[in-house]
């Protein structure tokens, strides 16, 4: 019979927790979200020594206070779900700060096993750690591992299964001074007598109260014993205690470190030398820009042949389906609806895989933090974090992977704002629309017009970020306190796993929404409008006035007339939600020139719309509802339809207002006439 246990994997960020997780679970992992929030949760399974282990990867945290959502999630999981064993992954090159979390895990009274990771790097740096002594001091198993090579994993799992059958007695390794200990004891008595607190390790809870942890105080307030607790807390100045608790934890760690290792802190490490160049005053920005350019080029240029292949393949599939299926409406549904729909999901996959491969390289090497360090000054001007820069730049290629890239931003509010403004970064799919219209109406000035559209997108994004920061997403600025991890050589395996995970999430979660959207538009374009004599999905109906979509276009006409658009443009814009580049194609069909873009330009320029309306249409295309793929990832990444709909409504309103002003004011002033 096999035992079933839960293991929580805890640790600071950048300590190689993910590589340990990957080494233990291999490909057997499930990526989802923690209930109610969009912080990622990874769960994996492993059978070892006849024990069935479920490994839960906790968010990377430096501490277990109520400072960030990540920390609250990690500690609530440990307290509420009571994992059988907690494994803390520790970066052996950075013991002191890593052990700060250890002190808190031990206070929680959990069964702890320490994975002393990256021991090879510590050795190379000249640190000599005596694991045996460390184990004796902490009374906790300490196993040395090298996650990137999978070394020490067996031993780690052995230690976990051994630990299962021991009772814990190590809660009190970390002692504080008399003032704190006395108060903790007094609080402990109160907590132990109130069943409300039976759930929590009382020493830990007392210490958190003394530290002034907001989340814990809130919990205490709900109990009947709060007046008594408050009395004890009021005896001393909270601010002094808070500093003392942190200080004494570090003091204990230092005492231990003196016994268990000699650490070489003075020498300049290789990482420091790399950093001197990479974030250098003169070279820092050029290096950053070149890397951004390279990442952008690789993501979008390298992906092009693959995207073309996907496009050709699905085009061929659709055509084959149409010729093979004898019933016309069914052929159209399969060909133009379903196959085209699946194609429009898969087409973004090369972009997403390549971008996440690049991001993974940047994160694992330690460069991502430097990028944020370099760009933070600019981003802080709009109330955002340095880490928001990369997703926004990627947005110029394609908003879909860009929005997924916001995962690297820890603060939820910063992340939400970045997601909401990314669609204003003019993506590659909008360019064909600009090229056609600017070419038809502005001739030699087309370049200037297109450039201005990109600039307008950035401006709208910046102003929107500021606006959201001061209205709906108001609040104190998140303090910028960021570790600059030492540089490491990323592993191919790690980057490939990361890349594949993102691809899977995209296909599963966003894919469904995209598919439904595309098939939905096909249906609207195929169902004959009431009163029409045409047949469902026939060529005479598809996308014309006789179809539902044509009817909707005509119904929308009063809304777009003030912008100088006719119903055909309205229909093209509805189609544009499938994918922005379709706006051009559907205008071709609606104006009866088919695929011939030159004819379309001629018709448009000959008077189908005025230059001002054309300019308005370009701005409208820039700002209104992004494509289904984008809507799909906004929903997936914000985890909320409310925010998704907000983005759509906000963007479309802006689009309408801008186009209205351009057309109405411009016409009255006789501009471009």
């Amino acid at each position: 019979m096999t035992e079933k246990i839960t293991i929580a994997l805890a640790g600071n960020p950048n300590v190689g927790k993910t590589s340990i997780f990957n080494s233990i679970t291999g490909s057997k992992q499930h990526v989802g979200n923690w209930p109610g929030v969009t912080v990622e949760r990874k769960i994996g399974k492993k059978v070892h020594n006849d024990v069935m282990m479920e490994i839960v990867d906790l968010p990377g945290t430096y501490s277990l206070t109520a400072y960030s959502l990540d920390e609250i999630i990690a500690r609530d999981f440990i307290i509420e779900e009571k994992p059988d064993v907690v494994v803390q992954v520790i970066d052996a090159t950075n013991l002191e700060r890593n052990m700060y979390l250890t002190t808190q895990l031990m206070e929680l009274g959990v069964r702890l096993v320490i994975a002393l990771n990256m021991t090879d790097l510590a050795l190379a740096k000249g640190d000599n750690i005596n694991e045996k002594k460390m184990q004796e001091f902490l009374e906790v198993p300490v196993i040395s591992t090298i996650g990137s090579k999978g070394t020490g994993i067996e031993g780690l799992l052995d230690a976990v299964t051994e630990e299962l059958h021991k009772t814990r007695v190590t809660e009190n390794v970390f002692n504080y001074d008399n003032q704190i200990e006395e108060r903790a004891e007094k609080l402990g008595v109160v907590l132990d007598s109130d069943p409300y607190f039976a759930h929590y390790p009382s020493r830990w809870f007392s210490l958190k109260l003394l530290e002034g942890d907001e989340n814990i105080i809130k919990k205490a307030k709900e109990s009947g014993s709060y007046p008594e607790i408050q009395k004890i807390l009021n005896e001393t100045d909270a601010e002094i205690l808070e500093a003392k608790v942190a200080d004494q934890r570090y003091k204990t760690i230092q005492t231990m470190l003196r016994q268990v290792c000699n650490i070489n802190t003075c020498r300049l490490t290789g990482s420091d030398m790399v950093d001197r160049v990479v974030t250098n005053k003169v070279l820092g920005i050029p290096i950053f820009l070149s890397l951004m350019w390279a990442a952008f080029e690789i993501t979008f240029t390298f992906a092009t042949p693959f995207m073309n292949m996907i496009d050709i393949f699905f085009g061929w599939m659709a055509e084959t389906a149409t010729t093979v299926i004898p019933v016309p409406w069914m052929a159209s549904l399969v060909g133009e609806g379903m196959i085209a729909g699946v194609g429009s999901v898969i087409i973004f996959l090369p972009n997403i895989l390549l971008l996440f491969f690049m991001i993974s390289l940047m994160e694992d090497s330690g460069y991502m933090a430097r990028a944020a360090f370099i760009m933070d000054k600019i981003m802080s001007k709009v109330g955002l974090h340095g880490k928001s820069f990369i997703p926004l730049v990627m947005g110029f290629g394609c908003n879909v992977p860009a929005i997924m890239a916001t995962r690297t931003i820890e603060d939820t509010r910063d992340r939400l704002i970045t997601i909401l403004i990314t669609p204003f970064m003019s993506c590659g799919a909008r360019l064909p629309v600009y090229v056609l219209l600017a070419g038809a109406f502005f001739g030699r000035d087309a370049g200037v017009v297109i450039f201005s559209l990109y600039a307008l997108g950035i401006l709208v994004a910046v102003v929107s970020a500021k606006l959201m920061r001061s209205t709906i997403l108001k609040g104190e600025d998140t303090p910028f306190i960021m570790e600059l991890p030492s540089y490491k050589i990323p592993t191919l395996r790690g980057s490939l796993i990361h890349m594949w995970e993102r691809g899977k999430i995209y296909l599963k979660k966003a894919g469904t929404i995209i598919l439904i959207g595309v098939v939905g538009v096909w249906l609207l374009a195929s169902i004959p409008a009431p009163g029409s004599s045409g047949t469902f999905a026939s060529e005479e109906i598809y996308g014309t006035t006789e179809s539902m979509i044509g009817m909707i276009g005509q119904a929308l006409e009063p809304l777009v007339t003030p912008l100088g658009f006719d119903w055909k443009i309205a229909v093209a814009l509805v189609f544009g939600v499938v994918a922005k580049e379709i706006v051009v194609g559907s205008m071709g069909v609606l104006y009866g020139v088919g695929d011939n873009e030159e004819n379309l330009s001629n018709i448009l320029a000959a008077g189908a719309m005025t230059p001002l309306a054309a300019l308005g249409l370009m701005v409208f295309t820039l700002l209104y509802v992004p494509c289904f793929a984008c809507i799909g990832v906004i929903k997936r990444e914000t985890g909320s339809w409310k925010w998704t709909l907000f983005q759509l409504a906000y963007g479309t309103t802006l689009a309408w207002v801008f186009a209205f002003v351009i057309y109405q004011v411009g016409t009255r002033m006789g501009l471009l006439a």
Partner: protein
Amino acid sequence: MNEKTLDFIEPETSVKVLKVTGRKSSRKRILDMGLTPGTRVDVIKRAPLGDPVEFKLKGYNLSLRKKEAETVLVEIVK
């Protein structure tokens, strides 16, 4: 006394932390990251655009915006 706030310290200077002030949430985090009284901190460099600033303490590198560094009271040791 040579008391200053951390944002005023020039790069390539070493300081000792005296006290962390400021808003509760950031104060707590700064302490958790190891800037406890008595800790030695080396100011490494400013970002190319002047802000944030990079520090080395307890064998690792940390960056703070000047706004956060302002809340750390230090004295120069070297």
